[in-house]
């Protein structure tokens, strides 16, 4: 006979939670994917600069699908002077940092509300015998899943979108928005995946840790 513990699958439980709250899940994924796309962009520019200063036309291991080769398209022969590139990059990093902060705020906020809404549910789980760690695992899986999903959306939709948007702006007569061809090497992709998962998981952990560790009695009380 299967005990509750044996049939309890934290992954499916977490997924069903996400499915049941489409609005919240979607906004979280959107915010995160925009953030990640932006970070990917900045990262790729950084790599482009430090590895091949001035912009090389070699194709690399990964070109985000749908993106275009800036230099070919617009015949940009020379990039910007070095100091300018450095400074721009500086600003971009700063911007990315801020945007990352915003994303963390939102994930934290959203997960904290979700947790509070489910206080009764968590209380029941705890009362039935699940340890706080097991309950936490459910939430962490939720967070990780959001992180992975956002990364996928960012990589396949976000970055090309931004690059093409930039191309559109360039056509308006401005000179190179991108002083190097943005590329996303595999290393960057992997790093961003891990980063995304880490970001979400940590935010979720912080949001949940208070409630999940409370005793079942406290959680089930009707105020």
């Amino acid at each position, binding site marked *: 006979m299967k005990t509750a513990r044996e049939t309890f699958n934290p992954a499916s439980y977490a997924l069903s939670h996400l499915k049941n709250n489409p609005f919240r899940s979607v906004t979280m994924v959107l915010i995160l994917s925009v953030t990640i796309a932006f970070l990917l962009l900045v990262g790729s520019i950084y790599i482009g600069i430090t590895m091949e200063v001035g912009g090389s036309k070699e194709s690399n291991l990964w070109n985000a699908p749908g993106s275009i080769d800036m230099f070919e398209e617009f015949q940009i022969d020379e990039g910007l002077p070095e100091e300018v590139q450095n400074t721009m990059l500086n600003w971009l990093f700063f911007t990315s940092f801020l945007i990352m902060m915003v994303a963390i705020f939102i994930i934290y*906020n959203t997960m904290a509300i979700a947790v509070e809404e489910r206080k009764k549910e968590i209380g029941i789980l705890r009362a039935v015998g699940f340890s706080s760690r097991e309950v936490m695992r459910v939430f962490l899986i939720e967070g990780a899943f959001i992180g992975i999903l956002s990364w996928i959306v960012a990589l396949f939709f976000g970055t090309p979108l931004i690059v093409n948007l930039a191309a559109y702006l360039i056509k308006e007569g401005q000179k190179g928005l991108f002083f190097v061809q943005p590329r996303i090497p595999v290393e960057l992709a992997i790093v961003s995946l891990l980063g995304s998962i880490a970001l979400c998981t940590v935010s979720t952990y912080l949001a949940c840790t208070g409630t999940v560790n409370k005793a079942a009695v406290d959680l089930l009380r009707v105020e």
Partner: protein
Amino acid sequence: MRGDRRAPGLGKDRMAKRMGGRSLGPLGYIIKDAWRKRSRSVLSLAGIASLSFLFIIFSSMDEGLDRYFEEREDDVGIPSDEEKALDSLRGTMNSWNYLITGLCLGLMVLVVANTAAITVIERRVELATLKALGLTSRQVSSLVLGSMFVIIYGGIAAGTLLGLAFVPLLDRVEFTLWGEGIGFPMAIDLSMILAALAIGTLAGIIGMIPPLLMVSGPNPAEVMKNV
């Protein structure tokens, strides 16, 4: 009924406690509610403030470049290295500005939608009670809208002020983490502030649509049944 009132002063408005002088307006409700949920409100506010800060900084960079070259319009002669460097950046800067602005707007909409949805969901029973007590859907919606706009405008005010404060500090400051860099000229223009407000308002309007639909939708009776 006049006389000494020595009620325990737990409320913030001790001063308002006069005989029959008290009333509760929608603004009072909004503020009290925001205060109670202050950690959440602060997070959302911080998110919006960061975005408007970003917007101000980048706009000022753009503006600064424009002014820099305006000043030098009449100059004839060999452009300095600095000038050359900045010139190359001009077109780029404009485009970046558009991009950042779009980004800020988009993210702000998402932040607003997120926070508003959270507010409405959390307070489902409370809002249904208000309807039961005779407040119309429109009045209840205005309460939700009001509390959101307090956060939005508060965030924008904070971010904008902070940004404006930083601009003179960062003006022409050279800094990079690696190698050499150049300092950007940065300047402030009134249009930036107005733009920030406009973005916030727009974000508020767009972001509030789904939650407002949620508020006016269900019957208060149905909601309370599920308690």
